[in-house]
């Protein structure tokens, strides 16, 4: 009974998901189709390629920061094992964020595992696929499962060991309980290096006929910090905006920063200067009526200006942090004092604190620390 339900549900959603390719997010459109298509992650790919030829897969645990290719890799691998026709009945993808308790997950897995694998190896696209006699269950975002749920999962894994292979995908390997982790071969995904990111982004830009120069690509990489999903999304937004102006304008680094919500460097430098930090090339606003830099009044005024501009406090904090940490002349003691404030402010903002009060607090204490 539930078997039909599951199948019914999946075909229904499959129909719902047809998205006009022109409107498809590029992250989906350019998801690697095969494991060889995955950028960087050489070690993982080499091991998996071997597994693919022997068609004998262990249980696997993929971990690493967002946007490094974890989901893409397992999907590509599964597709190469089973081909397009059998993919649906051989691969179950469960997202932990739509998990509604382990009971439901267990039901789904049970139903899925109970169906006997049966497949033609020659697929409708004329290719031959290995189609080994097991199913793959992908548990994406597994680190958001509770300990209890993971414990229950371990028993499920044992029960169906003969006919299933599990692939757990997560950001933090330490959040996976030991008995579960120890049953899997672990694969670490690392943030993409700038070269791999650059070539991937350039490739996509070419396919979409978008003009990007190397300055724009560099900005994409800097603002996304090794997360290729973010870089690709920013690229798509930027190209949308540049194509929508009349006449179309090339993508400029500042456009990308604006899309990413980055505070312009000049603004951060100006704030830092108000706090008494020496910044090269900061704009020197000549305003004699203005209170002396470093006074309470001048810092408060500057903070109010930042708030009026609508910049986000977490973003200001992170950029000011970078500026202080990499500052050439501030000494270690000064930097350490600043680091304390940044940590406190980050926690406070996470707890929902008032942004203006805390940016002011950061400003005042950084000023005190360096003077």
């Amino acid at each position, binding site marked *: 009974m539930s078997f039909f339900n599951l199948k019914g549900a999946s075909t229904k959603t499959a129909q*719902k998901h047809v*998205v006009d390719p022109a409107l498809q997010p590029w992250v989906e459109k350019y998801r690697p189709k095969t494991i060889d298509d995955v950028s960087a992650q050489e070690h993982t790919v080499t091991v998996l390629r071997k597994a693919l030829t022997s068609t004998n897969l262990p249980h696997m645990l993929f971990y690493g920061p967002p946007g490094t290719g974890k989901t893409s890799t397992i999907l590509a691998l599964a597709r190469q094992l089973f081909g397009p026709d059998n993919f649906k009945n051989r691969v179950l993808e469960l997202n932990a964020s739509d998990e509604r308790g382990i009971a439901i997950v267990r039901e789904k897995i049970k139903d899925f595992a109970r169906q006997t694998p049966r497949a033609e190896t020659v697929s409708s696209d004329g290719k031959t696929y290995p189609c080994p006699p097991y199913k793959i269950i992908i548990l994406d975002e597994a680190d958001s499962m509770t300990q209890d749920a993971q414990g229950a999962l371990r028993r499920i894994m044992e029960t169906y060991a003969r006919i299933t292979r599990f692939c757990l995908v997560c950001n933090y390997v330490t959040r996976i309980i030991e008995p579960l982790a120890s049953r899997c071969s672990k694969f670490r995904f690392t943030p993409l290096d700038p070269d791999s990111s650059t070539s991937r982004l350039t490739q996509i830009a070419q396919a979409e006929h978008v003009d990007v120069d190397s300055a724009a690509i560099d900005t994409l990489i800097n603002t996304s910090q090794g997360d290729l999903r973010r870089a690709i999304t*920013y690229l798509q937004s930027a190209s*949308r905006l540049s194509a929508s102006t009349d006449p179309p304008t090339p993508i400029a680094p500042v456009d990308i920063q604006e899309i990413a919500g980055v505070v312009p460097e000049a603004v951060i430098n100006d704030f830092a200067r108000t706090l008494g930090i020496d910044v090269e090339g900061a704009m020197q606003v000549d305003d004699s009526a203005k209170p002396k830099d470093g006074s309470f009044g001048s810092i408060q005024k500057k903070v109010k200006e930042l708030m009026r501009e609508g910049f986000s*406090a977490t973003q200001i904090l992170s950029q000011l942090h970078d500026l202080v940490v990499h500052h050439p002349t501030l000494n270690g003691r000064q930097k350490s004092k600043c680091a304390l404030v940044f940590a406190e402010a980050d926690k406070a903002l996470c707890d929902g604190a*008032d942004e203006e009060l*805390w940016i002011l607090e950061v400003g005042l204490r950084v000023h005190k620390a360096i003077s």
Partner: protein
Amino acid sequence: MSLWVDQFRPRTLDSLHYHHGLSARLKSLASSGDFPHILFYGPSGAGKKTRITCTLRELFGPGVEKLKIDQRIFLSPSKRKLEINIVQSNFHIEITPSDAGNYDRVVIQELLKEIAQTQQVDLNAKQRFKAVVINEADSLSRDAQAALRRTMEKYMSNMRIILCANSTSKLIAPIKSRCLLMRVAAPNPQEMEEVLNYVAKRAPFTLPPEAAKKIIDDSGGNLRKAILVLEALKMQSPDLSGPLAIAKPDWETYCYKVADLIVSEQSPARVMEVRAKFYELLSHCIPPTVILKTVAERVVEKVDESLKADIMHWAAFYEVRMRLGSKKIYHLEAWVVKVMSLYKHFFYDMDMSSFD
């Protein structure tokens, strides 16, 4: 008779007064056929909501202005009934998550699924998708945001989400990276003056530049507030000449009184007096954060430079505790006691040094 803020609110992107670059972008996005999910963010009264309404009109035509309000019933996971008012037109729907309290995830999930799975029925509609406007998006719970994240990718073909928030800090990264971010800064003084003059012209009357300046200085970049004040002033003194007194809202005057009480005497009896005033403010539904900030900023104006930073430090410290705790008054009071003690020490130390 509606207020000027509503009566003279621009209805199309072309008639928006400032941030012309933003308007132009929105306009071309609306006509490109490739309209993304958008997150509008910026301070209160900067014109986010107006801009969103204009964008909707650009997308769907004047039909979006025909609003109806439906009452809908949702079931919480514990099967409790939630009654929620939903504003919608044939082309869009608006949700304010705080209306759903702790159950915002249920409401968001249900509504979005429903919209996502129904195709646009109106054959004359200009777009194939419906728009979902989520007001005060920064108050969405984590759960609701997580639910939103998947929906945004899955149902891109017949739904677009427009989020409106004061800041992006409280939104999770996966949501931000799925939206086009549109920062709506507060208008600068010249831009505000332009708008005030426009309102005056439509009303119609002439607005003396000194009056405009005064209103703008008082508004702190909040255009809604500026127009409301303009209308109130015009009622009080029709020719708007001579020295104008912009009436502070009662609660603000009341906060100033509290600040004066703190600065003029520091004693247990005074703490009790201040406490009574805090209760009064809280019972009038003035948000505790606003109370604390307003009183603190006023106190800071009145004390020596060397005390200012500490006073604001403790304000920041107790504000976040107040959010995490359950009794607002404890933390407000703790701050008052702290400030009084700082203040007393300051004078005490000074007295001592004069004996040297």
